[in-house]
């Protein structure tokens, strides 16, 4: 049991708005950690601090024992080679087609130049997300769910060691969401990845997560296994879980 990422007393504000107010969290290597929490509590902000596109006001984030908050640009770029990142709204490049989007990190980060090899890998990834043959479509021609899956393929393209997923299944139909969940579990286990996932889907979180972390009021108010989460007597967490399940039942 080793921690690959350790977050200590992380603070982040935007102007006068305190978003993260002392976050402490350990991410275990080879496990799926799921961050849950209300909309607007700073889950995405937390992920962006880990990858270094937002700088914390104070606190530390260590990756493999090194404090990334002290990294210079080159070291951050180096570190990012280990990461795949799925943005909440996919953030596909709108001036490139799907194939070029997925190939982008392979060309830029892995410096792959062989066109045939690239095309094969792109086709393989599109198969994986169940959208074969859409290489030449533009992101603007895809549905929200399709964009998200292409974003997922792009995140997996560089064979990352750690994947950070910002709501990989939000906006997908239940069957598709389920298949993405399965895919995440599969790649995490088979490729020995570490996954950190933001999710609003509580049943799925409890199903696939090795660990649940509940972000509330700027801090991690609870973290533990799904069983521990269900049995915890943390009132806000219980209410949050109940609400989420209730909403799902209504839907």
């Amino acid at each position, binding site marked *: 049991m080793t921690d690959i990422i350790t977050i200590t007393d992380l603070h982040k504000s935007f102007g006068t708005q305190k978003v993260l107010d002392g976050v402490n969290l350990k991410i275990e290597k080879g496990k799926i950690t799921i961050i849950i929490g209300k909309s607007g509590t700073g889950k995405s902000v937390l992920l*962006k601090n880990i*990858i270094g*596109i937002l700088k914390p006001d104070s606190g530390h984030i260590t990756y493999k024992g090194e404090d990334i908050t002290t990294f210079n640009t080159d070291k951050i*770029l180096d570190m*990012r*080679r280990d*990461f795949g*990142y799925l*943005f*909440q*709204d996919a*953030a*596909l*490049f*709108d*001036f490139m087609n799907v194939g070029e989007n997925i190939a*982008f*990190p392979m060309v*830029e*980060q892995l410096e792959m130049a062989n066109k045939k090899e690239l095309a094969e890998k792109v086709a393989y990834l599109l198969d994986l997300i169940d959208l074969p043959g859409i290489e030449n479509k533009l992101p603007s021609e895809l549905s929200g769910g399709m964009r998200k899956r292409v974003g997922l393929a792009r995140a997996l393209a*560089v064979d990352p060691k750690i994947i950070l997923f910002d709501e990989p299944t939000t906006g997908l139909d239940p069957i598709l969401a389920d298949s993405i969940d399965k895919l995440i579990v599969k790649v995490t286990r088979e490729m020995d990845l570490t996954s950190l996932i933001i999710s609003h889907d509580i049943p799925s979180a409890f199903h696939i997560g090795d660990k649940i972390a509940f972000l509330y009021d700027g801090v991690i108010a609870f973290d533990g296994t799904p069983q521990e989460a269900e049995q915890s007597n943390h009132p806000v967490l219980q209410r949050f879980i109940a609400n989420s399940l209730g909403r799902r039942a209504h839907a």
Partner: protein
Amino acid sequence: MITVGHFVIYLRRVFSQLFKPPFRFSQFFEHLEKIGVDSTLVVVLSTTTTGMILALQLGYIMRMFHAEMFVGSAVAMALSRELAPIMTAIVLIARNGSSMAAEIGSMRVTEQLDAMEIMAVDPIHYLVVPRVWAAFFIFPVLTAVANIVGIAGAYFVSTTVFQVDASLFFQKIYLFLDPNDVYSGLMKSAILGVIVALISTYNGYITKGGAKGVGRATTTAVVTSTVAVLVADYIMTDILLNTLMRAG
């Protein structure tokens, strides 16, 4: 004051990346082509008519002194020194400066710039630098086109309205137009291109606040570039005239 400071930091980042490999040829040519396709027609139309209007105005005055054969050289001088670079810059701001700000701005608000950074690519290097180079090369080309079609417009008016002899028209241009006027105009326009690209991409780069923010960035880019182009032109003209006077 804060924005000036930020812009200076941005400039430093762009200039540190200008010559950094790999040079993004495909991006560069894409922008060259885009600017060319988007703007050539508008540049041609606006400077042809400018040449014609100038010729008409000057023609009526010069006819009083029986000097209408000098209309061509006067128009050529005005165009090559000032009007062609400025008109071209204004057209390119409206067509391309605005779209640079809008494209990069919408990439900012949809997190595409962050995504690029995460994939270890500096958006300044990938998106801004090719646009700056493209503007640096295409502005003088379109300015040269503007010179030619503007003079063609003047030729048309001189020969039809004022019955100036065609060979006389060109002879006077040849006699009075200093090649330095043309070179200095083209040089100015290359620098104006860089200024427009820098200001427009900067406004896109710092966009905040969704679609509304993109609209705001575009407007700011156009207004700021226009003012900057006029101010920069004045300063460059001052410097050029001083050096030319001293040399001459």
